[in-house]
Structures are given as structure tokens and as C-alpha cells.
């Protein structure tokens, strides 16, 4: 009507600048104290593990027999083990393996879990068979299976990829292949719900083919449960590897991982406490920080909490 009205209307329309969804999520994430602390710790550990060996240059496999079972000192900040190997170097080296195991195993699990979940959720005909398959995997007792697979394929892989890569691939593959089921179930549930959402129906009415609906509409919307599963997956994979070490099924003994170091050091707990303290600490800190990151992600990606 009047000029004034128009001015007022303009003023209202000219609201906050467009913000991307990613930014929203990030904003929310940064507001989660636990998640931020977790991210900081996790980044620190990752960086330390990657660049640490450049600074602390002692070879983790070198045993200085004269300096065995030492406590913390400048030369050996985390002490040495019973063969005189430097613990810091081993923790750093072990961290590379443990973290890589965590990340790669998680990636494998996420891949299979998402694939199976999306296919089962989206295509009615595949639902039955794929869910039976999931049930079957869930019902497979992992431990004996792990043992047998490790025994079966260890040598083949060793000769193809070398002793360390081979066993790494094996362990990572096994942990991955036995831990995708939860993700698959969650993803399937979400896809089933999403499939009924009107925007998927809208895409169908447009004539978008199934695979593009999946890629364009389904995948981005199941990202949040996948991300959360992923963080949990990293933590679980690291723990599983350490349990494998306990049962003697993990990496070769000269190939340190945090779980292995913790296990090997356990009996020395009262002689050189630093031998269990440090691997235990980094292991827990990593799992803890990853968990907190997952918590933060869950909150940040949850539209209810973020508010619209």
C-alpha cells in the first residue's frame, strides 16, 4: 500500500544471508564441547602418529638390550620394553597401524553396510534375501571364523602383499566384513522411511530413475546415521584388533599395534607401568575422542536438535 509498508516488507525480506547445510552442521558441531575436544585430541593423535616418527627417529624395532625395562626418560620418553625397544617409537608406529586398521575396516564396513542397506531398503524384491543374509552374518560367530580365515589366507596374502600389508589387509577385511550388519540394518530402516517421504515420490513422479534417486535423494539423507556408525566403527575396529592381539590372532609380534603393545605390556604392568600406561592411554583417548566426535555429529546432523 503505502511506501512505508513496502519499506517494512523489504526490511523483513532482507534477512540472513543464505547458509549452506554444511555450515549449519559445522556450526552446531563446533558448539558441542565434547565433539570439539574429541576432534582436537583425535587430530593431535593422528598428526603425532603421522609426523611423530620424523621427530622421534628411533627405529621401533631396534632393541637396545642394555636399556631394557626402562622407565620414562629423555632418551625414551615412554620408556622401553623388555627387549629394549623404545616405547614411544612403538606407540607411534603402532598408532599408524591401529588407526589405519580402524579407518580402513570402518570404511569397508560402511561400504558393505550402506550397499546392502540401501539395496534392501529401496528394492522390495531384494529386501528379503539381503536381510536374510544380514541375519546370517549376524548369527555367524565371529571369533572362530576370524581364526580360521586368518589361518587360511594368511600365507597367500603374505606372499602377494608382503608380510605386513598382507596381514593388514586380512585383518582389516575381516573386521570390516564382520561388522557391516548393524549399519545395514540402520540404513535399511532409514531408506524404508525415506522411500515413503514425499520428495522421493516427487522424484519418481518426475521420472528420475532408481539409481539416480538413490544417489541424489537417498544417499545424502542417510549420511548422518552412516557417519555416526562410522565413528563407532573406527572405535570398535581398534578394540577388536586389540582383542585379536590378546587371542594371538593379530599382527606378527614385531609389528606393533596399540592393542598388541597393551597386551604384551600387561604382564610388565608392575615393572614398567609406562609400558601399559601409554598404549592404554592413547587407545582409550582415540576411542573416546572418536566416540565424542560421533556424539557431536549425531547432534549436529539431527535436524530436531539443530532446529529449522
Amino acid at each position, binding site marked *: 500500500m503505502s511506501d512505508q509498508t513496502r519499506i517494512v516488507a523489504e526490511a523483513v525480506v532482507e534477512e540472513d544471508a543464505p547458509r549452506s547445510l554444511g555450515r549449519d552442521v559445522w556450526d552446531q558441531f563446533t558448539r558441542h564441547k565434547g565433539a570439539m575436544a574429541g576432534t582436537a585430541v583425535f587430530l593431535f593423535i593422528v598428526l603425532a602418529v603421522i609426523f611423530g616418527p620424523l621427530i622421534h627417529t628411533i627405529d621401533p624395532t631396534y632393541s637396545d*638390550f642394555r636399556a631394557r625395562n626402562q622407565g620414562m626418560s629423555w632418551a625414551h620418553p615412554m620408556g622401553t620394553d623388555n627387549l629394549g625397544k623404545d616405547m614411544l617409537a612403538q606407540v607411534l608406529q603402532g598408532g599408524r597401524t591401529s588407526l589405519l586398521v580402524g579407518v580402513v575396516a570402518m570404511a569397508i564396513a560402511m561400504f558393505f553396510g550402506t550397499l546392502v542397506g540401501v539395496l534392501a531398503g529401496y528394492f522390495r524384491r531384494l529386501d528379503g534375501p539381503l536381510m536374510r543374509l544380514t541375519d546370517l552374518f549376524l548369527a555367524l560367530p565371529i571369533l572362530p571364523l576370524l581364526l580360521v580365515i586368518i589361518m587360511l589366507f594368511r600365507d597367500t596374502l603374505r606372499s602377494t602383499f608382503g608380510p605386513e600389508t598382507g596381514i593388514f589387509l586380512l585383518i582389516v577385511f575381516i573386521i570390516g566384513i564382520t561388522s557391516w550388519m548393524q549399519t545395514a540394518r540402520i540404513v535399511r530402516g532409514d531408506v524404508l522411511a525415506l522411500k515413503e517421504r514425499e520428495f522421493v515420490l516427487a522424484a519418481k513422479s518426475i521420472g528420475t530413475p532408481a539409481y539416480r534417486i538413490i544417489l541424489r535423494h537417498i544417499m545424502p539423507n542417510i549420511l548422518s546415521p552412516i557417519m555416526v556408525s562410522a565413528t563407532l566403527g573406527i572405535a570398535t575396529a581398534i578394540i577388536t584388533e586389540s582383542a585379536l592381539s590378546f587371542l594371538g590372532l593379530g599382527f606378527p*609380534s614385531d609389528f606393533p599395534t596399540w592393542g598388541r603393545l597393551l597386551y604384551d605390556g600387561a604382564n*610388565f604392568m608392575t615393572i614398567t607401568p609406562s609400558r601399559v600406561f601409554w598404549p592404554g592411554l592413547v587407545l582409550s583417548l582415540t576411542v573416546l575422542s572418536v566416540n565424542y566426535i560421533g556424539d557431536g555429529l549425531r547432534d549436529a546432523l539431527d535436524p530436531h536438535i539443530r532446529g529449522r
Partner: protein
Amino acid sequence: DGHSERGSDGQLNIIYWQAPSLLNPYLSGGTKELEAASLVLEPLARYDETGTMVPWLVDEIPTVANGGVSEDLTQITWTISEGIMWSDGTPLTAADAVFTWQYCTDPAGGCAQLSNYNGVSNVEAVDDSTIRITFDEPKPFPYGPFVGAQSPILQQAQFADCTGEAAPTCTEENFAPIGTGPFIVTDFKANDVATFEANENYRVASQPAFATVNFKGGGDAASAARSVLETGEFDYAWNLQVEPEILTQMEAAGQGEVVSAFGTSVERLMVNFTNPSADLGDERGTVAHPHPFLTDTAVTRALSLAIERNILVEAGYGAAGRPTCNVLPAPEVYASTNNDWCLEYNPDEANRLLDEAGWEMGDDGVRVKDGVRLSVLYQTSTNSVRQGTQALIKQMWEAIGVETELRNIDGSVFFGGDQSSPDTFQKFFADIEMYTNNFDGTDPEAYMGNWACSEIPSPDNLWLGNNMPRFCSEEYDAMVVEMSQTAALEDRAALAIAMNDMLMDAGAIIPLIHRGGVSARAASLEGVKMNEWDSELWNIAEWSRAE
């Protein structure tokens, strides 16, 4: 000793971290089963803590001198002592021994102690107390059957229906055999716990001092040691393969002490004289293809010299190990002193030897000769002490320019002898492998026979054979034959030493450590005589609780 009454000392708690799976030593060759069963089942004679054979259910050991062994060395006659009773009150007779022989040699029974009856053509009961054993050919050492923990006597009455294919189905019998020993089984939980109580019919009236035995299994060695040395929950713990410093620290708690004894076990490196390269396909690891460098004695000698054995002992064995340069380090009479050069850690000499032999140090720190790199694949079974040893040796060898790749294989695969697995210690598809071997009793004849040419594992004999290095020498084979015909102890000893030295000189075996058994006993436990030649519990009847 001061205790005179049977069963007056209450309960004895023993922990074997590997739990026995049954109590019939004929159906399981495992040490844990053998020793658990030795509370109940007894042989005619056994070895004491010095390795001396002592009469057990007999009055004396038959020898040629006392007429117990025939002049042609083909027969041995044992006479059971007066008044030996089974725990059910029936007398032990020669028929039981005959039965035991039949039981073990039944082809369908799968007897694990069959080798003790090698060459036995007949066992007969001459009368109730006289057992006569006849051999196919002269046996200079006729003490295989019914001697030692491996070959105790079963009660015929109990096992009569359990021969051949029925043997494994007799769970009740296998879990609770009736014996002549100081204890009888009251309850047995496979792989978990066995309980025993004193045998009322035991031949020594005042023994055993303990009324019951709780024989627990499971867990790991370190915690077993802890339960005796630190928490005092148990009286005796067996086979404590734990890093020595841990044991030392636990001992400091004052609840008990570590006991050890040496037998014939030697942790050794086997050197592969054949080429294990996978490129050779089916001919891999056969004598047709000699190893590219390990047949060079300069190399094997250098490898041996470069190992500081003291460190290996210190790191992994402590009081239970000592450096050795012989594959046959005991008993005393058989031990050679000709190879003691290896006791001294001498990398300079090793380097010199290699230089001399033309192995040039390459840029990458690995010696090369004629394009062949001194690079070895070094395998062993999975076990933390072994892996520690591996790591140390790897470093020692790298110091003299030998590249080392380590590999460990699960014990049940490595020692499993599966034809289809490439990882068995017999196939030996590696350059060096490490394990421990020993022999039962005190006679090395069969043991030294392991390195005869005929013992070489190959596809033809389905890789069954004990000559892992694939060492083959006519001279050595001749000595093996000679030993089987020699009866006099001194001559046998000389032969054994010569054979040992020949193996050492050829570099077929690099002995590392003479290993002993390590156990722990509570401070209050008396009478323990640690024995590596027989069951550790051989004299459990004499054990008692200190006041």
C-alpha cells in the same frame, strides 16, 4: 621326613595353565595329560631328577649284568614288586602290562605313545608278576616300554572293553583311570579341573601326605605364576614360560619360589640345506636343489658366531636357560665340548669369515656374493618368547650384513604336519626355523637317528621325517647304524658326541639355548624335586606341607 600320616596335610593346589583334556596318556601325547595322569598311573620304572633310572613298581632295573636283559639284547624281563595294588584293591599283575601293550599297539586305537613300543614283537606274562618283552632285533637300550611317564600301566579290568575303535568312546575310563599311584581321581572336568584324593591302597602307608589334590587348568603362564608367587592361591604352577624379570619380581613377594631343572630340550635354529624358493614348484625344499648359500659353512658359522646367546637367555629364559652349542647337551656323558667356540659372541670373527668367503657388504647393508643376497626367511611358531628371540637375532644378524625376514606360524599349524599346509616345520619352506626338541628318557639313540639321510622329509615320504635341515652324510648314517648295535655306555657316548659334532661342523643346526623346565612352588610346599626326565609330579607322594 616328619610327616607320617597319609592325608594329614589337607589339599594340594596345582595349576597347569594348559588344562588336561583327559587322563589317559595313551590317547593324548600332551605333557599336561601325561603329568596329570602321573598322579594315578605309574610305569615300572622312571627317571629321577638326575636322569637316573629308578625302579618304581619293580624291585630292580633289569640289566644284562643282573640277567634281566638277555645277552643278545632281544629280551627284557621285569618283575613286579610284592604287594602292589590298584587303587580298587586288586593286585597289579603282569597281565595288565600285556594288556597295556596290546591296548597301545591296536592299530585302530590311535595310541599316542606307540613309539615306546617300537620293535616290540611280544609282551608276555610269564607269571603273575613277571613280564617278558621280546624285541624284533637286538635293543641295546631296551627301556622303552613301561618306563617313564609316557608308558604307564593301565588296568586291564578297567580298559578291557576300550580297545581299538572303542578307545575314544570310553569317556568314563579315560577321565578317571584306575592306577597304582598315590592318588585316585574323584572328579574330572575336561580342560578345566581335576580333583584327586589320596589312594588308600597306596604302597607306602604314610603317603601321600595330602588328602586331596585340586588340579586346575586354564589361563596363561604369567597368571599361573602369579597365583603361586603373589597371591598364594596355589601351591604349584607348571611350565612358566614367562619373561624372567616378571618371575623375579613375582618371587619377591615371598609367597613361593621358582624351581627349574634341565633335561634334553634345546631351542635350536634349523638350517635349510635345500632351496625353499616357491619358484621351484613341487621340487621346493627337496634335496635336488641345494640352498643357494646355507650349505656354505662359513655362512652358518658366522650366523652362529653373531648370536649373543646370553642376551637371548636373559631376555627370554632366565634361570631356565643356558647357552649351548650342542644339539645334544645332556645327559652329561653325551655332552660335547668341541663346539664351545660358539658360546662367545664374536661378530668380528663372523664378519671376517664372511669377508673371507667372498660375501661382500652391499650398499644396503646386506652381503652379496655372485648376485646372491644374504637374505634369510626365519620362521618359528607363535609364542612371545620366540618372537622376542627372533627380533633379537634379526638385529644381531643384520649387524653382520644378513637380511632377515621374520615369520611366525600358529603352533598347531607349524607342528601340525598337515600335508596340505605349506607352513609345517617339516616342509620348512623357509631358510631358518626355530623350535625346541628333546627326547624322552636319557638315551639319545633314536634322537640322533633323526638326522640320517632316510629321515629327510620329502614329497615321497609325504614330508614325514625328522631331518629338517635335510642333512645327509654317509658317515653319519654309518654311525647311526653302529650306535644301534653298541651296548656299552662309553662307546655309545663317544658315538653320540661324534655325531653331534658332525652336525655342528656342517652347520646343519645352530643350537641356541639349553632349556629347562620352570615351575613355581609355594614356600610351604616341601618335597618338590624338579625333574625334566620324567613327570614333574613324579614324586608327588613325597610332597608335604611345611609346618
